[in-house]
C-alpha cells in the first residue's frame, strides 16, 4: 500500500512539472515569432549601413583605424553572448566552452585577453570563478534592443580606439550562437574588429561608366567625418545583428530543451502509471487469495 501512495505522489509531482515545461515551451515558441519580427525590423537599417560602407569602400581609399590597426598589439578583447536565464539546454554552456578554448588559443599566441560578457548566466559563471571581466551587460538577452547594442558597441569601440599604451585592444572577437534553423544552432567565433570590408567586384552595369562615375560620389561634410560617424554605427549594427541572432538561438534552444523535458516527463508519468497499476493489481490479487484461502480453511474445518 505504501508504495502505491508513493507512486501516486510521484505521478502528481511529475505531472505538475510537465505542465510547467509545456508552458515554458509554449512561451518560448511565442517568443520566436517576436524575435523574428525584431530581427526583420532591424534588417533595413543594417542593410543601409552596409550599403553606405560598401559605397565608401568603392569610392574612397579607406584609411581609418577601425579598418586597419597594427595586428601586433598584445591585447585582445573577447565578447561572449550568453543568456540571462537557464532552462535553455546547452546554450550558455557551449558558449562558455567555446569562449574558454578561444581564450586559451589567444593565450598561446601570447596575447593578453580582456573578457566582456553579456547575459546573467555568463556573468555569474565568471564572477563565481573570480575571473577578471572587463565589462558586463545583463538583461533582455532574449529580446535585445538598440540600447544594449549601443552600450556594448560604445564600450568596445572605446577600448579599441585607445592606443596600445593606454591599454587599448587591437582585436575584438565575438562568441555567439548562430541561428541556422529551429533545431540547429551553432556556436561561432567572429572577428569583429578590425573590420574586413570586402568591396563588391564591380560587375555587370557599372563596368563601363564606373571609372568616371565613381569620383562623382560626394561625401559631406568630408570623407573623414563621414567615416568617423559611419564606421562606429556599422560596428553597432553588426553587434546588434549578432545579439539578435543569439537571441533567436536562445529562444529556439530553450524551446527545444523544454520540448524534450515535456516528453521526458510524459514518458516518466506513463512508466509510473504502469507501475502503480501493477502494484494495485498485485495488492488486489493478494487480498483475494487471502480471503479465498481463509474461507477455504474455514469450510474444511466444518466438514
Amino acid at each position, binding site marked *: 500500500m505504501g508504495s502505491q501512495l508513493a507512486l501516486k505522489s510521484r505521478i502528481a509531482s511529475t505531472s505538475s512539472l510537465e505542465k510547467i515545461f509545456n508552458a515554458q515551451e509554449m512561451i518560448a515558441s511565442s517568443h520566436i515569432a517576436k524575435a523574428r519580427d525584431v530581427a526583420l525590423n532591424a534588417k533595413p537599417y543594417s542593410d543601409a549601413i552596409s550599403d*553606405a560602407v560598401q*559605397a565608401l569602400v568603392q569610392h574612397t581609399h579607406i584609411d581609418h583605424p577601425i579598418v586597419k590597426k597594427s595586428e601586433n598589439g598584445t591585447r585582445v578583447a573577447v565578447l561572449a553572448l550568453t543568456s540571462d536565464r537557464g532552462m535553455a539546454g546547452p546554450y550558455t554552456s557551449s558558449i562558455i566552452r567555446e569562449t574558454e578554448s578561444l581564450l586559451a588559443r589567444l593565450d598561446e599566441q601570447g596575447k593578453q585577453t580582456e573578457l566582456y560578457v553579456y547575459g546573467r548566466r555568463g556573468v555569474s559563471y565568471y564572477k563565481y570563478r573570480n575571473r577578471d571581466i572587463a565589462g558586463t551587460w545583463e538583461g533582455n538577452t532574449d529580446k535585445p534592443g538598440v540600447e544594449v547594442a549601443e552600450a556594448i558597441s560604445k564600450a568596445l569601440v572605446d577600448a579599441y580606439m585607445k592606443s596600445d599604451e593606454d591599454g587599448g585592444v587591437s582585436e575584438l572577437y565575438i562568441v555567439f550562437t548562430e541561428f541556422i534553423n529551429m533545431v540547429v544552432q551553432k556556436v561561432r567565433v567572429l572577428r569583429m574588429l578590425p573590420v574586413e570590408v570586402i568591396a563588391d567586384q564591380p560587375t555587370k552595369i557599372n563596368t563601363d561608366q564606373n571609372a568616371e562615375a565613381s569620383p562623382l560620389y560626394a561625401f*559631406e561634410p568630408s570623407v573623414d567625418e*563621414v567615416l568617423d*560617424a559611419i564606421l562606429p554605427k556599422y560596428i553597432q549594427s553588426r553587434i546588434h545583428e549578432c545579439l539578435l541572432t543569439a537571441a533567436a538561438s536562445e529562444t529556439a534552444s530553450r524551446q527545444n530543451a523544454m520540448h524534450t523535458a515535456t516528453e521526458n516527463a510524459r514518458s516518466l508519468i506513463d512508466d509510473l502509471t504502469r507501475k502503480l497499476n501493477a502494484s494495485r493489481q498485485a495488492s488486489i490479487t493478494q487480498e483475494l487469495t487471502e480471503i479465498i484461502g481463509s474461507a477455504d480453511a474455514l469450510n474444511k474445518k466444518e466438514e
Partner: protein
Amino acid sequence: MSEKATMQVNIVSAAHPVWSGEALQVTIPASGGQMGILPNHEPVLTLIKQGKLAVVEKDGTRHVIEVADGFISFDSNKLTVAVEDAGTLKRAEENAE
C-alpha cells in the same frame, strides 16, 4: 509622360523601418544646414544632425518627421535615410503645391 520625376525613398531607424515610397522632394537637416534633394540628384552620402526631415509625396502631401543622428545616401535615384532615432511620421498642414 508629363508626370514629374520621382525617387524611391526609404527611411529606416535602428529599431524598425519608418517610411518608404515614392517622393518628389525630400529636405534633410544635413550637417552643413538644410539640404533639399530632388530626383536624379548626384550620388551623395551626407551626415545629418537632429532636426526635421520633410518628404513631399507624389500627390503633393507633405510629411514631416523628427530625426536625430544618422546619415543619408543617394544613389541611382534611391534615397536611403538611416537614423538612430526617429519620431513618428506627421502630416504637415500645408501642401507643397
